[in-house]
């Protein structure tokens, strides 16, 4: 198996980061010994969980020891993972959990019903080291797009462009990623304000394959639903940013909010399109494409800013050393 990757450790003290690395190296070694096979996803998730737990504290060795002690010894943990790899009797069962099969595969399709967190979203949506473009969905049945792999395949980034994704990106730039979903939510609010008085009491909420509305909702209910769809992920992203989570997690939360705000806007535009007498679901297709494109562009732009910051650090440093 590949080693457990991801999750920036830059917010930790060097001693604390070394403790985390030592722990996962020991887990990795124990997994190799036990021939556990491929369990990279589980290790990514575990690392994301550890970093999520640590991100609220000062990132000291004591914090790391406290969090890791909750997982047990690396060898014991590896033994639990070995027992839960595909082919075993109980795939997808979390170590130390009594909650049953929370993730795994059904009829060859991956599923995951654990409560999503910013670490898991981040590790699935932007992982340029993972060559798979389609990765198990963060929540639900099916696959999500690993934008990092897609960017590598399109030669927009290289897998090792950044030591830790987005860790070198200036903090203000990471925070500014929230502006994108904010603007989209603002556009939706403005559109509703402009068109509200001319709307019929009920609005189309669902369309069949040929673009004929087959479900109508009360106008107020539909707008409230779209507002919730747009604002709840935005509030989640704001919370992730305010808790000073790792830069990758923060950008991923902004990307999620961007996707959801785009989908909400798409739904409303499609309704206006229908009310205006047009038929077809062109706005829906355009909106879905935009919903994938915007997070992708966001990730790539932030990654390139991170790469540029690393290059400045190394190249300027070597120039200074030569001139001394």
């Amino acid at each position, binding site marked *: 198996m590949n*080693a457990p*990757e991801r999750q920036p450790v830059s917010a930790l003290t060097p001693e604390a980061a070394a403790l985390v690395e030592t722990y996962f190296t020991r887990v990795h070694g124990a997994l190799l010994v036990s021939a556990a096979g491929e369990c990279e996803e589980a290790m990514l998730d575990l690392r994301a969980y550890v970093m999520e737990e640590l991100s609220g504290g000062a990132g000291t060795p004591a914090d790391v020891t406290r969090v890791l002690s909750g997982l047990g010894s690396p060898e014991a943990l590896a033994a639990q993972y070995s027992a839960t790899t595909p082919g075993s009797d109980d795939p997808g069962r979390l170590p130390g959990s009594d909650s049953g099969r929370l993730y795994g595969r059904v009829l060859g399709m991956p599923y995951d019903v654990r409560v999503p967190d910013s670490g898991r979203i981040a590790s699935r949506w932007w992982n340029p*080291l993972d*060559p798979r473009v389609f990765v198990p969905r963060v929540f639900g049945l099916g696959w999500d797009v690993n934008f990092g792999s897609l960017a590598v395949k399109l030669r927009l980034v290289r*897998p*090792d462009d950044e030591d830790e994704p987005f860790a070198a990106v200036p903090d203000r730039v990471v925070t500014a990623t929230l502006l994108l979903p904010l603007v989209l939510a603002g556009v939706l609010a403005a559109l509703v304000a402009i068109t509200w008085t001319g709307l019929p009491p009920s609005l189309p909420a669902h369309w069949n394959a040929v673009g004929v509305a087959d479900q109508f909702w009360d106008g107020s209910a539909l707008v409230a639903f779209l507002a919730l769809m747009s604002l709840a992920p935005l509030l989640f992203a704001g919370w992730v940013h305010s808790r000073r989570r790792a830069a990758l997690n923060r950008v991923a939360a902004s990307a999620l909010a961007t996707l959801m705000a785009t989908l909400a806007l798409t739904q409303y535009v499609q309704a206006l399109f229908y009310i205006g007498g047009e038929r077809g679901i062109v706005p829906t297709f355009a909106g879905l494409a935009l919903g994938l494109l915007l997070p992708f562009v966001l990730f790539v732009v932030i990654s390139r800013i991170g790469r540029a910051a690393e290059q400045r650090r190394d190249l300027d440093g070597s120039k200074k050393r030569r001139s001394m």
Partner: protein
Amino acid sequence: MGTDGDGRLSQFRKGVVELAILALLHRGEAYGGEIVDRLGEHPGLAISAGTVYPLLSRLKKAGVIDSAWRESPVGPPRKYYRLSQMGAAEFEEMARAWDGVTAAMDQLLGKEQAL
């Protein structure tokens, strides 16, 4: 070779490729694509970029290798990898262990062939 055989070979190769990367970097620094290409020159070690880059990332996090961006004589800057002090010591140790393993395996495999 069947699927299981392919999987075992892949696992076997992944274990060895870590030492191969350290050996390459012991000869001098190299960038990621160069490491993939140079491993590809040895059919027994040919392994995809999708395996090499995560391995480089793990070795760097473990402090075995260092990396830094450098200007390239052709094209854009590249991220070069080199052995850290700890990595150099680890490589020496692994190389010695490898000698022991290969000697033992040669003996065992030779014995099998003689039967």
